[in-house]
């Protein structure tokens, strides 16, 4: 579930619930941030502040972890997140053409979100399904052997 609204009270509830689930020790910081990121869609400033209080960690440390890992985002993301595998096996199998077409279709570049808030486009490191490259993942759906011409059809499945 992705919470559209970012009301402070809603977020606080999520944070409390997740911290309770994992426990408030330092080594649970990454699982906690991962889970909140999944539930809220990204990590707003307020979250970092709340987590830092609950785990009794300086906010700077929480921020430094939140910005280090690719899957954690401190910026809002679109309703659908497109992950494009930028690894060598996909590249060799024609990934570059797919990647260029993808940016053209959405009119955004890597790491950006469309103005209407529908799509975010990010690159991801190897997903380990190299046998069917090039690979595009939209939300949790994986598409293999993608050609540039298939993209409009694939994208049309998402509202």
């Amino acid at each position, binding site marked *: 579930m992705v919470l559209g609204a970012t009301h402070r009270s809603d977020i606080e509830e999520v944070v409390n619930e997740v911290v309770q689930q994992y426990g408030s*020790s*330092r*080594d*649970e*910081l*990454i*699982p906690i*941030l*991962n889970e909140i990121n999944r539930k809220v869609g990204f990590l707003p400033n307020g979250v970092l502040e709340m987590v830092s209080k609950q785990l009794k960690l300086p906010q700077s*440390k929480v921020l*430094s*972890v939140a910005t*280090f*890992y*690719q*899957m*954690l985002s401190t910026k809002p993301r679109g309703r659908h997140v497109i992950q494009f595998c*930028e*690894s*060598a*096996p*996909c*590249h*060799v*199998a024609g990934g570059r053409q797919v990647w260029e077409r993808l940016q053209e279709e959405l009119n955004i570049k890597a790491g950006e979100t469309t103005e209407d808030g529908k799509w975010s486009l990010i690159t*991801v*490191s*190897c*997903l*380990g*399904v*190299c*046998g*069917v*490259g090039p690979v595009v993942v939209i939300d949790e759906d994986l598409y293999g052997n993608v050609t540039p011409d298939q993209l409009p059809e694939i994208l049309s499945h998402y509202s």
Partner: protein
Amino acid sequence: MPFFRSHVLISVDPECLKRGAHEVMDALQDELVQQGLNEEVQILETSRIGDPVQFGPDLMVYPEGVHYANLSVDDIPFLVEEHFLKGRVVNKFVAQESIIADEELGMPKAKEIRIVLRNCGKIDPNNIEEYIAEDGYMALGRVLTELSPEDVINEVLSSGLRGRGGAGFPTGKKWSFARASASTPKYVICNADEGDPGAFMNRRVLESDPHAVVEGMIIAAYAIGSSQGYVYCRAEYPLAVKTLNIAIQQAREFGFLGKNIMGTDFSFDLEVRMGAGAFVCGEETALMSSIEGKRGEPRPRPPFPAVRGLFMQPSNINNVETYAVVPQIMLRGPEWYASMGTEKSKGTKTFALAGDVKNTGLIEVPLGITLREIIFDVGGGIKDNKGFKAIQTGGPMGGMIPTKLLDLPIDYESLASAGSIMGSGGLIVMDDETCMVDIARFFMDFTQDESCGKCVPCRVGTRRILEILNRICEGNGRDGDIELLEKLCYEIKRDSLCGLGQGAPNPVETALKYFREEFEAHIYEKRCPAKVCRNLITYEVITDACTGCTVCARNCPVTAISGERRQPHLIDPDICIRCGICMQVCNFNAIHII
């Protein structure tokens, strides 16, 4: 522990029960007693084997792995007599399963030996009983009841097993260092952060045979004296994490994990930690920082993890494949394992074969096999009958190996002497239409992006290399760039903190070593011999072949093509953006690149 020569797994999910699974089971038990086979054949209940509507009641007989389906009580006497007494498979009861093509693995190909992958695709990873039926946890039983920790370490040492994560450090030696550290608690860590692009061997093992890894880790824990372990798995592998968690839960229920394992006074438990997308976390010290909840930045070594690792305590960290092979060594003996491979590199190794090769997917071969055998015998040769140009071994920190070194045997030392590494086992085959400068740039783009930024040589150096490669590909290469690249590579390798920086220059260095003329063509002749780098190529209409059908002109996004209908067309190189669409749409092969 009684020893059964055969194990029968009966599916007792609700659907099969409704169809009389328990009656079949009782009949089987009675018949076995009647034939005097109840001491030799063990009956176990399991969850579903196949599709119950199609097959129930059904059972699986191990070690043969025969799946009998649609059984009724009346079939049992005949089945017992034929299969268990006379040793003949009863074909009329064998389940006709729809064959699901396993493109990743498939049947073993020529020259393959499967040890790590032996259970993959054969057993249900979510059912511990199927693993047990394949002699699972028998090695653990032997270790805990017959061997001292020192014995275990000695057996692993004499098997010659070396770390399958890439560096190839002898596993037994690593364990003995961790054992020798006095401080407690100690930790056993499994590195399942398989981030190398093109490498998915570990993912497959975790998803298909998780208990082999769990069992290997328990044995390691016993050997070094640890009571807590972690599997650090990357977030890009959600299914592997899920399967592992199920496996750990089941192992706990069966008494293989937790307090007093198998009734001994040895206790050990295991937890899965998920990454959050950072390639550098595959580096062992960075991985431990990440488990601790910090940024995944490497630490200087020494102190090595065996002395001060996770939470500053002695830790043993090995790769998925290393742990997965341990139970087999303990079961079949170190001599057996050491009988495969070369003098210094024993056993088998899994590889992920990708790129321009006919059979892509996972393979497991004895070390010492040549690259030529892998590409042409196991891999079936180059796709589309093109020529071979290079093979990249060892992931983004590995090197490119050219045709003249195809007969190089694959072992840790030989690969290092060619300027590459074993790495975790990614093999990317490139055909003769690949531009080596472009590929070198591609790998550098990856490593500079994944550099964690802690040390200057890696953070700044990889960036500088990338800038130089970019300008060479764009046609702005300068005299002296090759020498500058060589100097940078040397210095980054020498001065970086961890394996990422120390390995990052390898692709560029080997490309320069084996394909120098391509760099020279880019820089001095402003030409890309493989016709890949956009700024260095020109699309041209072959006048004699052009029929003037106007397809190219209609498809050109920048209207760079002109010409009358039924007259040869012309591409204006100043307008052309070299997108290649005209060449794709031309039905007469009348457009080529010069």
